């Protein structure tokens, strides 16, 4: 969050950088779009069944049949990468949405109720700051067992304090503005004012925070599945592919681990660049 504060205070440069940032954002959008296409149409594009083990063709080099070669179990790496795009997109999306909804709910209640409720929630948020996503997910895995859903929820919840703190400040600011007072004086009930007026006015902030969180959430979830505590085999996932492929690196077959690692980095960087751009645009509009 500090990064944003600092960036926001830098004097805004005018013409050229804006178009450059715009171009970068469009490029990132195209990359993300391609990955979404890969995820949606994986069954149509993939040359092979991602889980079809073929012990005869372990570590096959790149060929017409296996464009990116095969892994230690003879599975087609390209097909696994394409299918792996699914959890790589679905997991972070669900986690970020869960985080944003919880954070908005808490922030709005804090701004509306104020007093002891606000103090307790603010304190709880401070405490949650002390649990990074990976550690909270490890705790969740110890309690509920390894799994995709538990890891998504844990990483999502760990993201709540970062989002909630910013939204709470904005909700406080909006709460004190005349349009809220006006709606209340007209006799609208609090819930109606919150849903119809306050939350729509918070949406730019919420979207900014979602955009900024995405990269971190992708990395956290990938780390969890790398540790074998997220999505379970034989399902293809980029994080677990890096982990599977790592032992083959020493045997001289680095392909699986490196390709999967590259996919994660490309996805994270694309979302980060797009997120920065969205955040800057929404910030400058205000």
């Amino acid at each position, binding site marked *: 969050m*500090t990064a944003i504060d600092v960036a926001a205070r830098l004097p805004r440069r005018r013409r050229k950088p804006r178009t450059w940032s715009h171009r970068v954002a469009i490029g990132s959008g195209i990359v993300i779009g391609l990955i979404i296409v890969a995820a949606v149409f994986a069954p149509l594009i993939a040359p092979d069944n991602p889980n079809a083990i073929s012990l005869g063709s372990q570590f096959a080099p790149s060929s017409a049949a296996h464009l990116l070669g095969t892994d230690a179990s003879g599975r087609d790496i390209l097909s696994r990468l394409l299918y792996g795009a699914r959890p790589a997109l679905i997991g972070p999306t669900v986690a970020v949405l869960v985080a944003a909804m919880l954070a908005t709910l808490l922030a709005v209640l804090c701004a509306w109720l104020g007093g002891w409720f606000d103090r307790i929630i603010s304190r709880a948020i401070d405490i949650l700051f*002390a649990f990074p*996503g990976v550690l909270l997910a*490890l*705790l969740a895995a110890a309690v509920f067992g390894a799994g995709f859903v538990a890891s998504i929820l844990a990483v999502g919840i760990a993201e709540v304090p970062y989002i909630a703190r910013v939204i709470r400040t904005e909700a406080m600011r909006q709460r004190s503005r005349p349009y809220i007072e006006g709606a209340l004086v007209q006799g609208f009930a609090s819930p109606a004012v919150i849903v119809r007026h306050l939350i729509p006015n918070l949406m730019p902030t919420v979207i900014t925070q979602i955009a900024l969180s995405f*990269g971190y959430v992708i990395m956290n979830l990938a780390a969890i599945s790398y540790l074998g505590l997220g999505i379970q085999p034989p399902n293809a996932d980029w994080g677990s592919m890096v982990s599977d492929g790592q032992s083959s690196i*020493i045997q001289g077959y680095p392909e699986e681990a490196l390709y999967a*690692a590259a996919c994660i*980095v490309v996805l994270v*960087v694309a979302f980060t660049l797009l997120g920065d751009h969205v955040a800057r645009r929404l910030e400058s509009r205000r």
Partner: protein
Amino acid sequence: MIMVATRRTVELVLTLFVASLVVFGALYLVPGGPIAYLVHGQVTTPQTVARITAEYHLNEAFVPRYWHWLTGLFQGNFGTSLIYHESASALIAPRIGITALLVIVAALETCVIGAVIGLVSALRGGAVDGLLTTLTTIGVGIPAFAAAAVLIEVFGVTLGWFPVSGAGTGFGGHLQHVVLPATALAVSSLAYMARLTRASVRQERQREYVETAAAGGLTMRQTVRRHILRNSAPSMLTAAGVSFVGLMASEVVVENAFGVNGLGSLLVQAVGAKDFAVVQILILFYVACFMVVNTITDLLALKLDPRLMAAAEGGS
């Protein structure tokens, strides 16, 4: 200063207390209840149930049970591993050194390399800045385990410069084994550090005092050293603190990537085996570590900037 330090310390202790409550309470969220969970795998004879009930004080109410656990921690009784049948402290003690070394080397790399890249980027500008900013933008998005895969392939296998697993013997051996893991760990946080340093130094450069200093005849080098760096120091320190939190979380992953037998590997094994006593104490340990580091960097930042200190002493 003392007032602020005391208040931060009290807050730290309170936050740690609640964190311990969360870590302890998690056991009671388990579907099927704590006994079923703790018995897992073992044959459920009345004797084992009785033993576990006694060991975890499960027949007492929640609050006294928690109190037992917490006071036990202060007496160095961290509970017993269900898997290794050893006390958790006996498992932690031999592993803590390599983990500390790994984190310290990575933190040094982060602070030194990150700050240097950020400074060069902000002060040089132009193509150098463009290149470094592109690299750090990508760097921030490289998870530690992805960096680990690349480093193992390049420096471990292809070039053969560094060992890629284990912990080595002796301090020199440890250090040699720690180079690659620490670098994998530092990649993302040093990029983050570099970006924040760059932003902060660029911002300071545009302040009026820089112009005044130049008008007064100071060279750029002197202005940077005497004025810009001093004004950027608090935000660089905060960046280092934030990086450290990321470092501690990724450390768990990196130990597994390189087969370093430290606390992170122990934690992941314990999670996999549902060895709850070990999970509890290790998560609490990690959380405590970076809460302490955060408090220290906060206080140092205040110490470095009297204006921040005045604000902290005055308000809230």
